[in-house]
């Protein structure tokens, strides 16, 4: 009888220890999972991460006596990473009925100098942003032949990260086109 009681006590205690072990393992697993999530977030914050948050304004400048037409885009560029970044390349893609045309970035444009320009390379410190205008130019001879559907702005940073943003409608400003 006493042996039976002792065996029962041992069984109960063993079961209780097993349950406690299971609970402890569960708590440890949860803690490890939370720790993993935190590590993952810290790693992610350190990855290069910028975007074109918005194209807040745009303009197509078309002056009759000039050989080129000029696209102006005002962009907001946040850098969401813990690392600084630098935009080293920008291009404008004009999607037209027969395909695409890549338009080059223009850093020498004297038109509308009062607009605050962004100059490539664009340095953006961690967790901050830059706002300004980018200018692109295309020869009038080519532009007049295109039936443009939409515009894509591409930016690439020194880490190789490339982002793009579409602008469907660009307001057009015609200078000295009295007969149009």
């Amino acid at each position, binding site marked *: 009888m006493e042996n039976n009681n002792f065996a029962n006590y041992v069984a109960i205690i063993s079961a209780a220890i097993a349950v406690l072990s299971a609970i402890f393992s569960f708590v440890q697993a949860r803690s490890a999972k939370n720790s993993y999530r935190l590590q993952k977030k810290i790693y992610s914050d350190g990855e290069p991460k910028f975007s074109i948050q918005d194209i*807040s*304004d745009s303009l197509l400048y078309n002056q009759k006596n000039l050989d080129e037409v000029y696209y102006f885009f005002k962009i907001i560029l946040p850098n969401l990473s813990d690392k600084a970044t630098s935009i080293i390349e920008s291009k404008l893609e004009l999607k037209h*009925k027969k395909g695409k045309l890549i338009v080059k970035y223009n850093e020498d444009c004297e038109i509308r100098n009062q607009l605050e320009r962004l100059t490539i390379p664009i340095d953006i410190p961690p967790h901050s942003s830059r706002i300004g205008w980018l200018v692109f130019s295309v020869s009038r001879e080519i532009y*007049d032949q*295109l*039936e*443009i*559907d*939409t515009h894509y702005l591409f930016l690439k940073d020194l880490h190789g990260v490339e982002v793009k943003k*579409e602008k*469907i*409608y*660009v*307001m*057009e400003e*015609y200078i000295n086109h009295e007969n*149009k």
Partner: protein
Amino acid sequence: MRINNKIFSIKKMALMKIVSDAAIASSHIANGKTIPLIILDTVKHPEIDEMIKMHHGIKYGEVNSQWAKSIDNRQILLCIDILEPTTISFKIQFDIIANGGLIDIIVESQLLYLQGGKIGDRYRNTMNAPNILLEIPSNDFKNEWINIFNKAYTKHFRSLGMNKKDAKKAAKQMRIEWGVIRDMRMK
């Protein structure tokens, strides 16, 4: 429905009916694209009239849009959520057969003029009324729209007595013919 991580209900949006439509092409606007204009029946929705008046003349705002289709494949909805400078949401109902050409131009141009009005209004009689120009990004919807267009018109032509093969061919040909208006440019 979630647009830009904002969840809102299509059911709660005011349903707007189209009074009439037009197509506008100008060499100074959007590279001469043909842009559709819709006059909405805003008699019971003066807030939409007010929104259009307030936006008229303002250079830029912010709008989200989403295309939707009814389960019976007869209606297309364009859900519009204007965020700046005023906030208002509504949906525009299109009949796929009656307004198929109009939807086609919106999808192709990705632009839409909106004007408020009442039954009987036409653009030629209301050219001085305020309107606003919206960007309606539709690249992701375009292929699906072409499928919807072809299926709906195939079914329509079959209901008129054509056999399946001819109806399918006629539907595709109709979209090609409609391209005369859709792809027109004023340059």
